[in-house]
């Protein structure tokens, strides 16, 4: 055979055991019980969810837990038309950056329960949880967020208000020492 060989296929399989990290672990344990918890930065007073171990602004560990409701505001979003590799979701679907009430960090989740075209920046949404029997140590316990029907929020005003609240928290903490 005098076929010119131009390509070889070299399959590579690697397996990994991931650790969530101490801070994310506390969050995921809360999720298993159907609770959303954020962690507050000791420097800025802002509440981060889901926590990743450090407050990125200060590099300090976050440890103070804050219980959070499962209502949120849509900060921005996209409608995905191209399937995500290895995902079972059928496009089109809305992936949104949400901020849970009383927290300051966006995270990504699905928004559904309405026409994709009706999703708006500033929309008020609430979590739709999967059946409790399916709950695991995972954000996936929330199937998606759906509109509450409340009027949309001015996200710039939300940001201003939350930043002020964080500052007040830090001032109060410093004052009470």
């Amino acid at each position, binding site marked *: 055979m005098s076929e010119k060989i131009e390509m070889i296929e070299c399959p590579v399989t690697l397996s990994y055991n991931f650790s969530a990290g101490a801070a994310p*672990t506390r969050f995921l344990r809360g999720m298993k019980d159907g609770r959303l918890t954020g962690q507050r930065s000791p420097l800025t007073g802002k509440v981060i969810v889901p926590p990743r171990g450090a407050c990125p602004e200060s*590099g300090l560990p976050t440890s103070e837990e804050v219980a959070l409701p499962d209502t949120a505001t849509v900060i921005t979003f996209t409608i995905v038309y191209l399937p995500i590799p290895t995902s079972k979701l059928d496009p089109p679907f809305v992936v949104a950056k949400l901020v849970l009430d009383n927290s300051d960090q966006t995270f990504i989740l699905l928004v559904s329960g309405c026409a994709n075209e009706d999703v708006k920046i500033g929309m008020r949404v609430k979590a739709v949880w999967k059946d409790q029997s399916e709950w695991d140590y995972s954000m996936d316990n929330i199937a998606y967020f759906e509109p509450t029907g409340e009027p949309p929020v001015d996200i710039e005003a939300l940001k201003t208000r939350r930043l002020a609240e964080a500052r007040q928290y830090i001032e109060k903490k410093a004052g009470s020492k």
Partner: protein
Amino acid sequence: MREVAIIAYAQTPLVRDCGSKNDVELVMEVVHAVKKQLNFTNKDIDFFCSGSCDYLGGSAFAFVNALDALGAVPPINESHVEMDAAWALYEAWLKIQTGHANTALVYGFGKCSQGDLPDVLTLQLDPYYTQPLWPDSISLAALQAQALLDAGKITEADMARVVQQSRANAKAKPTAQLKGDFTVEQLLAEPKLVSPLRRHDCPPVTDGASAVILATREVAERFHKRNAYITGIDHRIESHQLGTRDLTDSLSTRLAAAGAGVAKGKVDIAELHAPFSHQSLLLKQALGLDDSTKINPSGGALAGNIMMSQGLSNFGEVAQRIIKGEANRGVAHATSGACLQQNLVAVLEGK
């Protein structure tokens, strides 16, 4: 050349598995520790540079997460190499030489317990001819050990003595992973793992992180009466194809040693990045060191091997001992690639 010293150093405890700590949490420990040693905030640090390997983390942008540990708000001057952090130190040293920075924080980390380290290292090899055969890092090191034995340059007893010395030295380091008292006979009695290497001739798998702070003379003098200055630093690489290299010698180490000026004075201590026992012997030769140099007082990589930061740790270990007055002139070495393909050598002196 501007005089640059290493004025702070921290390393996490060397453990087989750091448990649930993620990369950010490992890096936070050492970054906060070195800043605290000097009471530095980010305002005092002109440049940050790190070394790590995404494949250890199992995701395409693993190194990005570690940025959270730095508190990069307001934004910082920062860079990254996908190499041992010793090369990140080199980048930072060059930056200071340009005058763009006076201080730099360099860190490296590796959480090897997550994945299968030998498989990851096999992916370093020529993807068309070598990697598809899946030779693992231990087998490749074994080839080099066998070549040294066949050439009569070392004996198995020599290798065992390196391990014995490493374990004994590590007793003085509470955070070392492997330590203890062993006789050469005990070690030689162990079965071979991948001939001619025994398990103890190979590095342990370690999770960890380390960090150093570099500074110019003006800054360094504020912190230590006696500082550890980098008086020479050089790094070289050799051909990737093992068949074209003399595996019983390390040409790149010789060249880097000459470039760093190792032979210009007495070398009191040397921290060599020798994950395998025979490499310690080979490197000692290539660096032109004799028995008057204490090799790996920290225990070396055989006592705990933080992938992507072992070389950087060596800088810290030497600097620390110079600052304490335990040594006056030392060599720090880092390696990358199978069978010592690439080597970085630096000379640190107390002033």
